C-alpha cells in the first residue's frame, strides 16, 4: 500500500471499535468509521455541510432507545431551523425523533450561565440519557463565551476528562478557521478532526472534505470531493494508487489496436493492461483511433468503455457506426459510453463513475477522450496527473488496456513539465502529426515509446477515411 493510502497515525496492532458515519465512502476514508468513545471536531465555514454530516452520522447510529443520540444546539442556529432543514434529507427518519434521536436547545442556559454551564450540562445528560453520541453544534459559539483562554482550557480539561470516562462519542461542530487549530484547546483534546471546505474553481464551487487528525488510526489523506445531495453527503474519495504495484508484463497477451498497419509496428499490439498516450493536435485523428481501438475490442467480444467530454452518446454512437459499421445488439450491449460535461463536473466524480462502470461490466478496454477536458475538470494539470497516475495503475492491476488522448494545442496541456509527467505514467506514447509537405497536407504517426516492445521508431504516413486511420505502407 502506498504511504498516502495508509494515511497517518496508524500504530500497528491498535484497533478501535468504529461507528459508521452513514456514508460508505467516508467510512473508507476513515478506515471503517469514527472510533468509538472519541472526541471529534467537524470544522468549516457556514454552509459547508458540517451539520448535515453530523446529522447523517447521528441517524446512522440511532438504533437503541437505551442509548439515544443527543444533538445540542448552542448559540448559533435556532433548534427549529435545524430540524426544519434536517427533514429534506433521505436519512431523516421521523420515527427516530424523540426516541433514538433527541434534539435539545442549550443556548438559553449558556447565555444565562456562561461557559460554566457546560460541564454540569454534560454530566446531567450522561446521567439521565446515557447518550451513545453527543453532538454540540456550534461548539465554536461556546468557545466564544470564554472570558479568557485559561478559562476555556480549564473547562475543556474537565469536559475532556468527563467524556473520556464515559462510553460516548462526541462531535463538536464549529465554524473554525485554520489558524484556530494551533491555538484553540479543543483541537488539542480532539481525537479526530474533519474539515469541510468550499473552493471556487472557474465558474463553479467544489466542496472538499479533509481528515486532519484521527488519533490512533490510519486514514486516507488529502482532499476528497463531495456534494450535498438529498441522501446527505456524496463523497468521492481521492483516487490513490492500488495496493499492489502494477507490472505491465503481468498479462503476456497483446491488445491489438484496431488500426491497420499499427500492430506490426508494435510486434503485435499493445501489452494488455498497458496505458497508451495518443497525442496530437486538433484534427489529427485521435478520437478516430480511439474509436477504432474500442471497435476492435467489441469485435473480439470484449466489453469496452469510451469516456468523452464533448460529444453526447448519440453523436458518438453515430461515429462508431461510421467507423466500425453497424454494431449488432451483442456488440452494442458490450459498449458503454460515458459522457460528461467537464465544465460542470469534478474530476473526482468522473473518476468514481469510470470505476463504477469498470467494476459493473468487467471492462477490458477504456478510451478517455480527452485529457485536456479532464484537466479542466481537475482545475490544473498537476492534479489531473495525480489522478491519472493512480487511475492507470488501477487499470493495469485490473488488466484493462487504456488509450488516453491528449491535445497538444491547449496551453494547459502543452508545458514540458506536463508532457514529462504524462510520459512517465504512460507505457506507450503515440504521436499523430499534421503538417504541410511539398504543397500538400501530410498526416503521420510515430511511436515515441512502447514499454517492453522493440517497436518501429520510424514516422509513418497515415490516411484517414470513413473507416478510420490506417498506416500507409512504405511512405514518409
Amino acid at each position, binding site marked *: 500500500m502506498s504511504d498516502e493510502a495508509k494515511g497517518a497515525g496508524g500504530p500497528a496492532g491498535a484497533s478501535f471499535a468504529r461507528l459508521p458515519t452513514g456514508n460508505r465512502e467516508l467510512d473508507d476514508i476513515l478506515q471503517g468509521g469514527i472510533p468509538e468513545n472519541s472526541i471529534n471536531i467537524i470544522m468549516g465555514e457556514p454552509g459547508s455541510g458540517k451539520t448535515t454530516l453530523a446529522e447523517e452520522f447521528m441517524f446512522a447510529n440511532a438504533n437503541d432507545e437505551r442509548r439515544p443520540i443527543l444533538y445540542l444546539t448552542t448559540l448559533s442556529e435556532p433548534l427549529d431551523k435545524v430540524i426544519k432543514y434536517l427533514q429534506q434529507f433521505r436519512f431523516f427518519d421521523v420515527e427516530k425523533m424523540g426516541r433514538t434521536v433527541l434534539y435539545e436547545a442549550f443556548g438559553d442556559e449558556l447565555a444565562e450561565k456562561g461557559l460554566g454551564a457546560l460541564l454540569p450540562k454534560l454530566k446531567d445528560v450522561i*446521567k439521565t440519557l*446515557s447518550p451513545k453520541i453527543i453532538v454540540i453544534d456550534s461548539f465554536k459559539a461556546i468557545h466564544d463565551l470564554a472570558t479568557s483562554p485559561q478559562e476555556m482550557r480549564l473547562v475543556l480539561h474537565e469536559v475532556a*476528562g468527563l467524556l*473520556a*470516562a*464515559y*462510553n*460516548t462519542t462526541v462531535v463538536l461542530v464549529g465554524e473554525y478557521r485554520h489558524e484556530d487549530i494551533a491555538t484553540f484547546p479543543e483541537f488539542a483534546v480532539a481525537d479526530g478532526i474533519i474539515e469541510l471546505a468550499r473552493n471556487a474553481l472557474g465558474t463553479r464551487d467544489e466542496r472538499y472534505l479533509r481528515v486532519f487528525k484521527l488519533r490512533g488510526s490510519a486514514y486516507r489523506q488529502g482532499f476528497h470531493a463531495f456534494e450535498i445531495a438529498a441522501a446527505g453527503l456524496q463523497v468521492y474519495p481521492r483516487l490513490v494508487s492500488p495496493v499492489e504495484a502494477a507490472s505491465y508484463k503481468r498479462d503476456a497477451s497483446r491488445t491489438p489496436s484496431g488500426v491497420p498497419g499499427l500492430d506490426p509496428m508494435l510486434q503485435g499490439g499493445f501489452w494488455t493492461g498497458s496505458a497508451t498516450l495518443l497525442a496530437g493536435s486538433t484534427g489529427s485523428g485521435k478520437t478516430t483511433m480511439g474509436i477504432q481501438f474500442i471497435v476492435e475490442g467489441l469485435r473480439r467480444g470484449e466489453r469496452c468503455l469510451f469516456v468523452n467530454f464533448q460529444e453526447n452518446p448519440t453523436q458518438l454512437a453515430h461515429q462508431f457506426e461510421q467507423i466500425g459499421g453497424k454494431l449488432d445488439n451483442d456488440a452494442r450491449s458490450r459498449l458503454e459510453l460515458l459522457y460528461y460535461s467537464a465544465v460542470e463536473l469534478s474530476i473526482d466524480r468522473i473518476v468514481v463513475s469510470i470505476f463504477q462502470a469498470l467494476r459493473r461490466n468487467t471492462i477490458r478496454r477504456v478510451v478517455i477522450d480527452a485529457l485536456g477536458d479532464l484537466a479542466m475538470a481537475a482545475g490544473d494539470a498537476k492534479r489531473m496527473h495525480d489522478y491519472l497516475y493512480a487511475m492507470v495503475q488501477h487499470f493495469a492491476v485490473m488488466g484493462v488496456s487504456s488509450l488516453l488522448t491528449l491535445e497538444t494545442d491547449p496551453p494547459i496541456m502543452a508545458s514540458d513539465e506536463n508532457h514529462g509527467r504524462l510520459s512517465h505514467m504512460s507505457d506507450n506514447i503515440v504521436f499523430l502529426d499534421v503538417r504541410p509537405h511539398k504543397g500538400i497536407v501530410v498526416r503521420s504517426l510515430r511511436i515515441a515509446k512502447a514499454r517492453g516492445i522493440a517497436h518501429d521508431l520510424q514516422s509513418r504516413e497515415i490516411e484517414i477515411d470513413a473507416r478510420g486511420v490506417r498506416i500507409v505502407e512504405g511512405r514518409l
Partner: protein
Amino acid sequence: MSAPNSSENGKAIILVVDRDPHVRELESHFLNQAGYVVEFEQNGESALEQARRIVPDIIITEILVPALDGLSLCRQLKADPRTREIAVLVFSILAAAGRAKEAGADAFLLKPLAEHTLVNTVRQLLEARTARLRRTQHER
C-alpha cells in the same frame, strides 16, 4: 473468613478505587441508581485498609492507582482470609484481562464506563457470591 457486610438498609456495599473524579462520580451515580451503596478510595493502600475494615460486597478497582496498584490490591485481598470472599472487579483503561485473572480478579471490564455492562457485571458477581456463600453454609 469474614462474610461480606451489607449496609444497614440491606443494600450491597461497593468500594470503588479510582483516582479519576469523573469515573468516581459516574460510577457512584449509576451504581446508586441500581440500588447499591458506594464507598470510595483513591489509592490501593487505603482501599486495602478500608476493605479490611468494612468488608464490602464488591471492590471495583482501576489498575493504575497510587500507593498500591489495583492488581497488587487484588492479590492481597485474595490472599487474606478476612477479605478473600470480596468479589473484585478490575475496571481499567489498560487492556489487561489476563493479568487481572492471574491476580485473582473475579471479573474484568475495560474503560470507558458503559453503565449497563457495569451494572450487569456487578449484579452477576453478587449473585455468584451469594450462591457461593450458600454452598459454603450448606456444606457446614
